[in-house]
């Protein structure tokens, strides 16, 4: 368990470093790096231009460039957006709350519905319900997220619900399969043969055994929600990180995009390490 956590931590550090190096390289190679086209841009104030210039002077030397970049990043200065001239960290700070709210509510709702339906079909063993929920899930998996977002804009449905629609089918499918597999494991039959009731079976013999796998599903759905937030926020006009990513991709504002992705990657890696908190013996038994 400690080893797994150590591996995750290493992965996070490596991701951050890769993200920083890539974004530093991109900043250096960006078309405006050596020329001074920013000076012509009337949207930028004199101060900003001066700051950009100072940056550039300091950045001529390759090694010292990377060193200063990383040092700055460690102090919370993630560089400047090449399109807007605003510090990246400020852009991210402004928008993180919005994304946190939409993704959070979507995740809670999607996971809630997914697990609820999975338990309903898994425990009740009603094949009709299974077919119904399963078909809804399959259908939602077959619609591009962006198209779903457009439809939801049309229906004036809140963005959280749109994210829930993306997450629910995945959670439902995985959770249902895990539940069905666990239900047919011999130790459940032993427990039933002891005379245990359904609630006790669920609480003592199913949920603890599946906990690791359920946490893994939750981890996956965090990545999914963040991906979905790009399409949903940009098409619904919500000023969050997803929209920022989209806008900077359209403007080819790579410093912002790469830094943002590295940050998001850290979040998803952390979310995916949730399942490491459960002792691995449990999980190997389940699969």
């Amino acid at each position, binding site marked *: 368990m400690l080893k797994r956590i150590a591996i995750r931590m290493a992965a996070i550090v490596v991701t951050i470093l890769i993200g920083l190096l890539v974004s530093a390289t991109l900043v250096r190679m960006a078309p405006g790096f050596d020329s001074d086209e920013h000076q012509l841009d009337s949207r930028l104030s004199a101060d900003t231009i001066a700051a950009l210039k100072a940056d550039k002077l300091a950045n001529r030397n390759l090694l010292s460039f990377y060193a200063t970049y990383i040092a700055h990043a460690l102090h919370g200065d993630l560089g400047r957006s090449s399109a807007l001239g605003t510090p990246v960290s400020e852009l991210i700070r402004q928008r993180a709350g919005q994304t946190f709210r939409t993704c959070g509510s979507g995740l809670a709702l999607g996971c809630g519905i997914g697990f609820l339906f999975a338990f309903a079909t898994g425990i009740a063993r009603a094949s009709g319900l299974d077919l119904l929920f399963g078909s809804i899930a399959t259908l939602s998996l077959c619609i591009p997220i962006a198209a779903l977002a457009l439809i939801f804009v049309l229906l004036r449905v809140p963005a959280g619900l749109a994210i829930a629609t993306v997450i629910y089918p995945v959670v439902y499918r995985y959770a249902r*399969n895990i539940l069905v597999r666990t239900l047919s494991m011999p130790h459940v039959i032993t427990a039933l043969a002891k005379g245990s009731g359904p609630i006790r079976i669920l609480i003592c013999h199913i949920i603890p055994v599946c906990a690791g796998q359920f946490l893994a599903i939750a981890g996956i759905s965090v990545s999914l929600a963040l991906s979905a937030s790009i399409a949903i926020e940009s098409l619904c006009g919500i000023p969050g990180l997803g929209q920022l990513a989209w806008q900077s991709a359209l403007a080819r504002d790579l410093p912002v995009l790469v830094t943002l992705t590295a940050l998001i990657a850290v979040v998803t890696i952390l979310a995916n390490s949730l399942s490491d908190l459960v002792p691995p013996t449990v999980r190997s038994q389940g699969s």
Partner: protein
Amino acid sequence: MKVARAIAVAVLLVVSLCALFAGKLSSPDYAFQYREVPDAAPSSAHLLGTDDLGRDRLSRTLYGTRISLSLAPIAALISISLASLIGGLAGFLGGWPERITMAVTDLFLCLPWLFLLLIARSLLPLNAAPLTSVLITFLTLGLLGWAAAARVICTEAREFRTSDILLQARATGQHGWRLLTMQFVPRLRPVLFAQFLISIPVFILSEANLGILGMGVAEPLPSWGSSLRELESFSSFSGEWWKLVPFTLLVLVVVSFQVLLSREEISL
């Protein structure tokens, strides 16, 4: 279940045939703008009406289908080749190469894919020529989609490496290249095929997402993604059903792939 599979195969067949004979079924000039009838309702001249630039929607839909349906499998082929190279090598070698590859694959799998796709796509020119944009889009998809398949292939290769079949084959004197082609490749073939089939709908969906976000295939080339952008200007579901045809077609095709795949249970 058999009936459903048969229907799925039939749908895919019909759609592919329509895409193949797009020129016969509709006007072959998908980019021509009938300036006098923009945004028209279906008529005998334009069976699905025209879009806001006055281009024939049927023809655009069919040619878009041709592009999406032919390039998604090619992207799948690229990603499967990449995956079998990476996964197969890692699983076959074992030891630390395998561990490192697996760790990288895991990392790759838990990253949000749409972010990666956006980075990769915006590294390349957005205002490229239409044909280049098509190639760029699907090449990016193919190059980024290897991780899940590589994992499965690596597991399979590891099982093969540690299995008794290998021992048996060595005992009968096979080795090296021969072992690879006679034992390993035949054993891997069903897995590769399943992964190939799984990737196709994923790539179709990803292209649609990129297209709707304006980062996919460039105008005036049609694709499902760019056809779906029309949904943005769509105001109600009841009035203009013909605008929903590309969307329905895409969902139908992806559902058919899912039905075909439902036997290969996608496991966690």
